[in-house]
């Protein structure tokens, strides 16, 4: 079954087409969400939400862009919404902390270990993921799509609904800001 057929069957509410869609795109959606939220359980939650939204709103997909582009956009929007909610909860958790209700995991989330990173690079990758959380959202998205998802600048431009030049600029600024964050981090490590 080719992609237009799959979409047509999805628009008719075909459950077997939905199963095929989940099988085909689950890794893409999950890994994109994981790169943004940096938490396996949250990424799983977002993946479910994305497919539910796709099932409910596939009729609105007109085919103006590639199906994968549409899916990336939904995933990124859900992942960023999730991040905003988490930040709000974290602020509220800080207030709760004052009143004695402790939720340590919310205040100090555990360090993120991406399961796909090579063993000898784990430590550096953890530092990079930590620095990624400190840079603006659009730079983080461009960097994540390029480095973790292997998307070309042209594809990223399509997903982010912007120009190729803007993506090049975002990537340049992302790298500069990441260098700054990493430099701050390594300068503060006491010498052994």
């Amino acid at each position, binding site marked *: 079954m080719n992609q237009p057929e799959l979409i047509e069957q999805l628009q008719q509410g075909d459950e077997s087409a939905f*199963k095929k869609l*989940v*099988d085909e795109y*689950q*890794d893409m959606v*999950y*890994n994109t969400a*994981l790169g943004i939220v940096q938490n*396996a359980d949250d*990424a*799983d939650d977002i*993946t*479910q939400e994305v*497919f*539910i939204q796709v*099932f409910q709103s596939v009729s609105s997909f007109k085919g103006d862009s590639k199906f994968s582009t549409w899916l990336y956009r939904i995933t990124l929007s859900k992942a960023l919404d999730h991040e905003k909610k988490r930040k709000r909860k974290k602020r509220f958790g800080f207030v709760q902390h004052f009143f004695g209700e402790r939720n340590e995991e919310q205040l100090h989330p555990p360090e993120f270990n*991406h*399961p*796909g*990173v*090579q063993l000898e*690079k784990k430590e*550096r*990758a953890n*530092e*990079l993921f930590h*620095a990624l959380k400190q840079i603006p959202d659009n730079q983080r998205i461009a960097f994540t799509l390029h*480095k*973790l998802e292997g998307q070309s600048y042209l594809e990223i431009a399509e997903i982010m609904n912007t120009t190729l030049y803007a993506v090049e600029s975002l990537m340049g600024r992302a*790298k500069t800001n*990441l*260098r700054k964050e*990493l*430099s701050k981090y*390594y*300068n503060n490590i006491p010498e052994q």
Partner: protein
Amino acid sequence: MNNKEQINKLIEEALNSVDLIKQAEVKPYLLTRINARMNRETETAWEKAGRFIGRPAVAFTGLCMILLINAIVFMYNDSSTPASANEQVVQTAADEFSYTVATIYDFENSQP
């Protein structure tokens, strides 16, 4: 290698650490979990309302509100009934103007 060079080396290593990253695997039975979630989300408004009211915090707050309203109504009724004063005024007026309510028995008894 001085400290600055060492830091620059670490930064480059960190930036390149995800270059050959492999895809993470999704937990099994994703489709089953999606279907279960869709079923949960398509429950009727009454089921949602029932589940909301059934939550201990909501039920307890509701109970407290009912008790509070009862207490306020009881206190208000108790303090705002100096009824005897009103009754006295009505009685005085009735006495002064000889105003009485005639009942069917009075009509029957008025005949000799």
